[in-house]
């Protein structure tokens, strides 16, 4: 495989962006990332984005947003109705074909205009499940009880995950939930959706992210210390909750194996784990040990921007490599109920 690296990253996450339209808040981010490596849109070989029409209630919302790239003259471009991490995957594949050396990847989502918990119910089986309108927190809580009652994880451990997310988020300017809270105080919280407590749930955000990818020598020209993508893979589990073992993530485990997570020590992991329970499941699926710092940014629990959170995990991991804070990192992205679909990327500094 061709060596491809993350050479630039920009993000914005706020609890509510209600002043600007998607394209209005994405244009500065696109330019921040392009300026960081001194590339204009016309110098970029391929562009790929991710977003969902359901979030903002607008069909074809990505058609408005493409104008932010400045696609005049025309550009080679594609869009996935998935988290931006899958847009990055598509761009990575395009770079593997060897015809272009650089790619722009962006994704965005505004959950605040609607009720995300309800909107996500429309993602479920449309005949048997969606008509009951179970919300996304309830679905995760069903998995959480299985994890607890089967002894896979304890409430204490979930509270430790939630507490650490807040602690790490304190130094992340893009995090939403960043006030420290002790494990004891979290355990004292009333259940939000038993057995999940408010601190186990994600802090919903509006926002977006932009990544620039470059291949081989081009990456070295553009960035002092590129974050090389050494492995990237994504897999799905079944959708029907009743046939899945919700205490594990087969898809994340396979993707991690294919991406080569276990071949060497991982310094940091940015896991797209919206819930404390999802982090527990992913940590096991990826086989991460005590020597890995989990979610140094605070993770998706501290700020969860639908359609961009996965791409942001890759960006956060890449930034730490480029800054020299880490030599080897893993980032994940997820989609669907209870970690149904997972993407795993391994990033290295050398």
């Amino acid at each position, binding site marked *: 495989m061709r060596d491809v690296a993350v050479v630039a990253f920009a993000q914005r996450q706020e609890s509510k962006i209600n002043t*600007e339209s998607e394209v209005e808040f994405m244009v500065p981010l696109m*330019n921040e990332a392009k300026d960081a490596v001194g590339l204009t849109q016309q110098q970029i070989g391929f562009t790929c984005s991710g977003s969902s029409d359901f979030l903002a209630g607008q069909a074809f919302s990505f058609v408005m947003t493409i104008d932010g790239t400045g696609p005049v003259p025309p550009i080679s471009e594609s869009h996935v109705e998935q988290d931006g991490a899958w847009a990055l995957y598509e761009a990575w594949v395009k770079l593997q074909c060897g015809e272009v050396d650089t790619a722009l990847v962006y994704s965005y989502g505004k959950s605040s205009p609607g009720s995300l918990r309800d909107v996500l119910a*429309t993602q479920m089986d449309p005949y048997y499940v969606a008509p*009951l309108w179970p919300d996304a927190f309830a679905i995760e809580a069903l998995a959480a009880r299985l994890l607890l*009652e089967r002894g896979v994880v304890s409430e204490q451990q979930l509270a430790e995950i939630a507490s650490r997310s807040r602690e790490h988020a304190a130094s992340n300017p893009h995090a939403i939930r960043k006030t420290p809270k002790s494990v004891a105080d979290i355990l004292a919280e009333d259940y939000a959706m*038993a057995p999940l407590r408010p601190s186990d749930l994600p802090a919903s955000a509006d926002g977006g992210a932009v990544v620039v990818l470059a291949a081989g020598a081009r990456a070295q020209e553009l960035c002092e210390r590129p974050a090389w993508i050494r492995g990237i893979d994504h897999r799905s589990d079944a959708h029907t909750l009743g046939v899945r073992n919700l205490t594990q993530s087969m898809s994340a485990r396979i993707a991690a194996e294919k991406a080569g997570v276990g071949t060497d020590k991982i310094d940091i992991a940015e896991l797209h784990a919206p819930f404390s329970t999802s982090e527990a499941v992913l940590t096991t699926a990826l086989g991460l040990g005590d020597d890995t710092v989990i979610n140094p940014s605070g993770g998706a629990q501290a700020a969860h921007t639908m359609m961009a959170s996965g791409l942001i995990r890759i960006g956060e991991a890449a930034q730490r490599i480029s800054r020299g804070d880490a030599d080897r990192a893993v980032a994940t992205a997820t989609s669907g109920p209870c970690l149904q679909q997972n993407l795993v990327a391994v990033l290295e500094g050398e």
Partner: protein
Amino acid sequence: MSDEVLTAPLVLEYPFTRTTGPVIGAFLTGLREGVVLGVKRTDGSVMCPPLEYDPITSESLSELVPVSTVGTVQTWTWNGDPRPQQPFSQPFAWAMITLDGADTPMLHGVMVDGPDQMTTGMRVELVWRAEREGHITDIAGFLPAVDSATGEPGALPEGVEEVRSVRTPIRMEYTYTPGRALSQYLRAMKDKRILGDQCPDTGQVFVPPRGVSSIAGKSTLPDLVELPDTGYIESFNITRVPIKMRPDLTPPYVSAWIVLDGASVGFMGLGMNVEPEEVRVGMRVRAVWKPDDELEMSAQNILGWEPTGEADEVIDDYSRVGRPQREGAS
């Protein structure tokens, strides 16, 4: 000028009609008749509700078997704040329930007084809705079962009409925000002023403003430019059949791309005070505004566009639209 951004409620709702196919159709037919069906998987286990394929191997499945209306809770959570379309209007438990005779659980609601009455492993019994139509909500929900309850599997009566489709209405409420540029544009509309935004590189002017120049890939904020309410028709459509969304419009009527004087791109407007047959590409037009006392923060303030009677705009290239250069620029 106030920078406050406009918001408006946006409701998206539609009564989706879903055709069901053989397996989903049979399950829903069963519900209407008071029978619960599962499907036999290739490993011999029974999945309920049934799918026409095995969700692990994707092999086709078709052998339906009746299962019990009594089952066991595998996991649950407490929903203290039910929303309108959910199974119960009072607080209830969401649960994964494996019906006797099936090997996989289904999601539904269990009605009990509080979370202290729920346990994993508890036995529950299906409660039918009084009037059933062949829909997952024919199951009103579940109640705790008495120990002796068996809920013997029933058999699907012969010769009943099969369910072929199901209605699953969706209603989602949003708060729509048009963004900074459009908010300014809409505010100015109240004063009968038309605003556009300008590309910082090429000077092109876009109406309505979008906050971004698609040529430069740059923000055009915060300063917008004001345009006159006159321009020309660069092309048009004549709608000759009524459309649902605009019952107020009587066909035939003209919808035209209007390029304002000083603008680089056109937008769609309604032709007024002119017969459709008389509309021409290049025809000069001006805005017809609502009466002053009816003006709102809305693009609807412009009722349409009427001919000015001036000489037509000369168009030398019919393939290109709008103006590539700012007027007056060389």
